C-alpha cells in the first residue's frame, strides 16, 4: 500500500486512484507571440528530471478528479508535502 493524501478529500487514499501529471509550477508565457522559439520550446517541451526533491502535479483521477501539487523525493518515493494549486511549496530543498 502506498497512500497519498488528497487535500480536497482530506484523507489518505490508495495510490492507484491518482495520476502523476508531471512537473508543477510551469507558467505559460504571458505573451506567447513575442516569445523566441527557444523560450517557447523550453516552455513546451523541457522538464526537470531531478534525482531527489521534485515538485509535481498530481490528479485524484478516480476520486474527486481535482489537481494538486506534491513535493516528492524521486529517489526514495517519500512524499514531503502536499499542497493545493496556487500555493507555494514550503519544502524546497
Amino acid at each position: 500500500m502506498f497512500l497519498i493524501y488528497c487535500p480536497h478529500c482530506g484523507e489518505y487514499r490508495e495510490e492507484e486512484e491518482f495520476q502523476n501529471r508531471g512537473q508543477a509550477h510551469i507558467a505559460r508565457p504571458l505573451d506567447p507571440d513575442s516569445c523566441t522559439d527557444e523560450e517557447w520550446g523550453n516552455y513546451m517541451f523541457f522538464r526537470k528530471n531531478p534525482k531527489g526533491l521534485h515538485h509535481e502535479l498530481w490528479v485524484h483521477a478516480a476520486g474527486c478528479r481535482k489537481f494538486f501539487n506534491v513535493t516528492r523525493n524521486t529517489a526514495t518515493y517519500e512524499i514531503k508535502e502536499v499542497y493545493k494549486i496556487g500555493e507555494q511549496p514550503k519544502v524546497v530543498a
Partner: protein
Amino acid sequence: MSDVKTEAVTVSVINQLPDASIQGQSPLFHADLATIAKSGPKTGGVTLKEEALLGHLTLRMNPENADQLKAAEKVLGVALPTQPLTSASKGDVVVRWISPDEWLITVPGLKAFEVETAFQKEMKGHFQVVNVSGGQTIVKLSGKYAQYVIKKSSPIDIHPSEFPVGKVVTSVFAKSSAIIRRSGENEFELVIRRSFSDYLWLWLQDASREYGLVIEA
C-alpha cells in the same frame, strides 16, 4: 472579478423521459433481476438490489456562494453537504458530495425533470445541472457479508471508524470505478456506470458466491 456582470442566461431543459409507449430499461435490464429474485435463493450472506431508473443529476457550483447554497436547499429540501466525503438525504432525495464543487443528486426517476427545472428557476449565476440518469445505475449491497464484497473489490478502508454511515467516496472498484456510499451499518450503495454495469454485475456475482448471493427485485 467583481466587475464581471452576470447576465440572465436561459438554459433549455429537455425532459428526457419518453412517453409510456417506450419501456424504460435500466443498465441491468438484460440481467432480468426480477426473475432471478423469484427463482434464486432466498437466504444468503449478501443481498443485491438494483435501485433502477432513478433520476441522477450532477450539480456543479461554487460551494462558497451562499445564495446558491440557499437555492439548492430550497429545491432539494435538504442542505448540500459541503464537508468532503459526506452525503445528505431527506425522504427519497439523496445528495452525495463528489468533489468540492460537484454533487450527485438522486431523486425518483419521474421527478428528475421537475428538480432540474426548479434549479434553473431558483438558482442564479454560474452553475450547472445535468441529467445523467441514462448513464448510470445504483446497486445496493446489504447483509452481513456485504462489507467483505466491498473489501475484495476496492482499496477503500470501510471500517466503521473510518467509513461511518453516510460517508461517500468515489474510488476504484474492481477494474472499474464506483461511487460508494454507506447507507446503513451493513448496507452499501454503489453508483456504477452503464457501460460497466454488466461487468460489475458479473464481478459481484463472483465476489459474493462464497457468502451466498440473494437477489432482491
